[in-house]
């Protein structure tokens, strides 16, 4: 029997008092595509970071091709043929594709420079900044391959891709496996695992609870493994008891021919977009990164100036930004300070130039309770909260302003299914209360499930998807292709 390409046995990892992994096992055979499935917070990324040398396990064994090894750093991992592609890309924007590849091979193999086979339609001279997100990801994979990886660890690779790009990725991954390599697909999406993998392992709360061939697994068994026994939470996709409020007469968000310059000079920015959102509606915005959705949201929030067009947005307005740790919160400041930050000058604790911190702290404590944020108290630095709790705080804080317009960018990022369901509930509640909600999510399923209407952004322009459009149609619009004619 051929030894496993990669095997992790009984891995334990603690971060302070948090037990990220409690004796997790994982076996990867050569030539297979293996999905590592689990909710956010289950420990999937942590486990793979240990295999890649980014973290050291507190206990357990790591075996490569059957022999025990200790991998102390990513460099060592790469030397042993393990490559990892993270959610944050490591390529250097200002250099070309070619230069990035050469840099990677020089990094790992001093003096040896090989000409890479650059199939896949990537222009070797192109500056990486100009590439699309999917292309940058392809480059990340190529860089891993350039370092002669035999084991590829992909961390949530489809999070940033449009549906057809996901298919392409799964195709490349399959080709790599057929040629003898082994691939780990870290994902929290059931349907991807079922579509692309040969075997699946499910982690829950830091333990391996299921492992087996895909052929023998069903949606139900996998979902149960991921969530554990017990009543399933209301899925994001169930509309439940929502009675859509009749849309208000006047739109609370109105944009006509809006033009906004691109951030950092990259991409189209907003190139003449028109849209309306009425109170009581949840309007979804679907877009591949780099097509202007950021500029649109920031302009609607009044943070970027439009260079042309008309824009009217009702107040109070709240924004839940995409990156909670660098845009939504200031990690070094306390939770109360972060709440004060959002409210600004119009807050119960502000009188003239004076700030009543006790009032702010009391308010924050109440906010933490109401939104079930697990934190030591209003004085705790925001950095001490887990990602999921930070997200709860950011959303709760925005809702506490009783906004008439809510702009949300990936509001369920990093949240497990239950917490995501709560977010969905709150968004529905806010809309039912008469607010206009514009929701951007890179998770197309989430957009389709929550939104009354879907707008698609491509090349800086906004188009409305036909009513009832599914993933296929919206996916095509996201890539700028015209929808297929009905029929």
């Amino acid at each position, binding site marked *: 029997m051929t030894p496993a390409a990669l095997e992790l046995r009984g891995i334990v990892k603690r971060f302070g008092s948090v037990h990220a992994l409690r004796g997790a096992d994982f076996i990867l055979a050569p030539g297979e595509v293996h999905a590592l499935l689990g909710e956010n917070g289950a420990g999937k990324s942590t486990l793979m970071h240990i295999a890649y040398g980014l973290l050291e396990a507190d206990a357990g064994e790591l075996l490569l091709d059957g022999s025990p090894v200790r991998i102390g750093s990513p460099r060592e991992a790469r030397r042993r043929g393990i490559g990892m592609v993270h959610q944050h890309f490591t390529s250097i924007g200002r250099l070309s594709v070619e230069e990035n590849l050469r840099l990677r091979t020089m990094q790992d193999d001093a003096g040896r420079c090989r000409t890479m086979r650059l199939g896949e339609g990537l222009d070797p001279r192109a500056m990486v900044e100009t590439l699309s997100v999917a292309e940058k990801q392809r480059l990340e994979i190529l860089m891993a391959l350039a370092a002669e990886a035999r084991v590829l660890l992909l961390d949530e690779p489809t999070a940033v891709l449009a549906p057809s790009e996901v298919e392409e990725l799964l195709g490349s991954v399959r080709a790599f496996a057929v040629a003898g390599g082994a691939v780990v697909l870290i994902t929290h999406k059931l349907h991807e695992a079922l579509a692309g993998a040969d075997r699946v392992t499910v982690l829950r709360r830091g333990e391996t609870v299921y492992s087996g061939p895909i052929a023998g697994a069903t949606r139900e068994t996998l979902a149960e493994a991921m969530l554990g026994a017990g009543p399933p939470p209301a899925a994001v996709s169930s509309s439940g008891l929502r009675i859509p409020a009749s849309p208000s007469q006047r739109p609370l968000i109105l944009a006509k021919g809006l033009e906004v310059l691109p951030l950092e000079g990259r991409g189209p920015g907003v190139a003449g977009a028109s849209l309306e959102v009425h109170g009581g509606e949840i309007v979804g915005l679907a877009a591949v990164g780099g097509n202007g959705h950021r500029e649109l949201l920031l302009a609607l929030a009044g943070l970027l100036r439009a260079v042309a067009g008309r824009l009217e947005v009702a107040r109070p307005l709240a*924004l839940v930004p995409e990156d909670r740790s660098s845009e939504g919160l200031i990690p070094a400041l306390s939770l109360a300070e972060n709440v004060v930050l959002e409210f600004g000058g119009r807050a119960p604790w502000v009188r003239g130039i004076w700030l009543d911190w006790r009032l702010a702290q009391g308010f924050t404590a109440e906010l933490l309770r109401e939104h079930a944020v697990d934190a030591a108290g209003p004085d705790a630095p925001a950095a001490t909260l887990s990602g999921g709790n930070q997200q709860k705080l950011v959303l709760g804080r925005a809702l506490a302003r009783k906004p008439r317009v809510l702009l949300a960018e990936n509001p369920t990022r990093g949240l497990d299914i239950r917490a995501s369901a709560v977010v969905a509930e709150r968004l529905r509640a806010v809309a039912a209360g008469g607010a206009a909600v514009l929701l951007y999510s890179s998770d197309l399923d989430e957009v389709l499930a929550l939104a009354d209407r879907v707008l698609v952004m491509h090349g800086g322009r906004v188009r409305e998807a036909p009513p009832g459009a599914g993933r296929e149609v919206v996916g095509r619009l996201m890539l700028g292709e015209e929808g297929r004619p009905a029929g």
Partner: protein
Amino acid sequence: MAAAALAMGLLALALTLLALGYAPGPAFGALWRGAFGSWYALGSATLVRAVPLIILGFGFALALRGGALNIGMEGQFLAGAIAATWVGLRVGELPPVAAVPAVWLAALTAGALWVAIPVLLRLRFGVLEVITTLLLNFVAEALVSYMVQGPLREAKGIYPQSDMIAESARLPLLPGSRLHLGFAVALLLAALGQVFFSRTIWGFRLKAVGAGPRAAWITGRIASGRLLALALLASGAIAGLGGAVEIGGVTRALFQNLSPGYGFSAIAVALLGRGQPLGIVVTGILFGALEAGAGAMQREAGIPAVAVSVVQATIILVVLVADAAVRRRESRTPVVAAEAV
């Protein structure tokens, strides 16, 4: 932690003295007496030397709170001193109640102007103020040289120094000592600063800009650039005021080498005081004490006064290392992994 840093500093001095063949005992005795041994020592030596350190220390802390490093306080101090001297020589007719504020106003303006160019360069071109403010220090020194040998030169024309400023522009002294009104100014500034930092919305906004400029913009809707510019201008103005206070209360005239590096010592004072105005008063007095004691150490024990720099340098090193160690411990987990849990 500050106490530990001080202890280590004193230990380092003791070891240095031993290594050089001096007896630490008498040296430390002299050090203490020079700093705190008598009311006179306390008032006229320690506190007088603390005044510019507190004022400039607060100025640095103000800019630092917003995320800017004003390394040019030395130059802004001198610019303020030049302006103070120029005005101080001309307000003889005015009563002190008008003369002193006039001098201060000139110094505040001069200090702000001296930092205005770095501010503009940072806003417009993103040039790091660390560099621009530092370079302007040299220009200020040269300007002082020029002034005392030219336009501001004393009437007698013998030495490169200005005449003494008018009586009404001089700061009153505490009877029987050399402690001047500037000490009250320093304390008042620190008190106002503390209130500003901890209780006002603008003090909070400044902190937000320094701690997280992107979040300050996106969530706080704060115009970070403008706020930071204001903080830097204020920082320069305050440093200029420090120069005026030194002229008005201590030297009463302008000459070269007016500042024995206050602009830089103040950085250490501010950092050791954790950027908190009240803490800066304490550390300013501490550093003032070391300087005062150093003079006594030299006179009584024959040890070069500069030896006390060992204490200051050690304190700074300890604070920096401790800060770095704390930050390293907190970020043991790579960012990538922290997101996953």
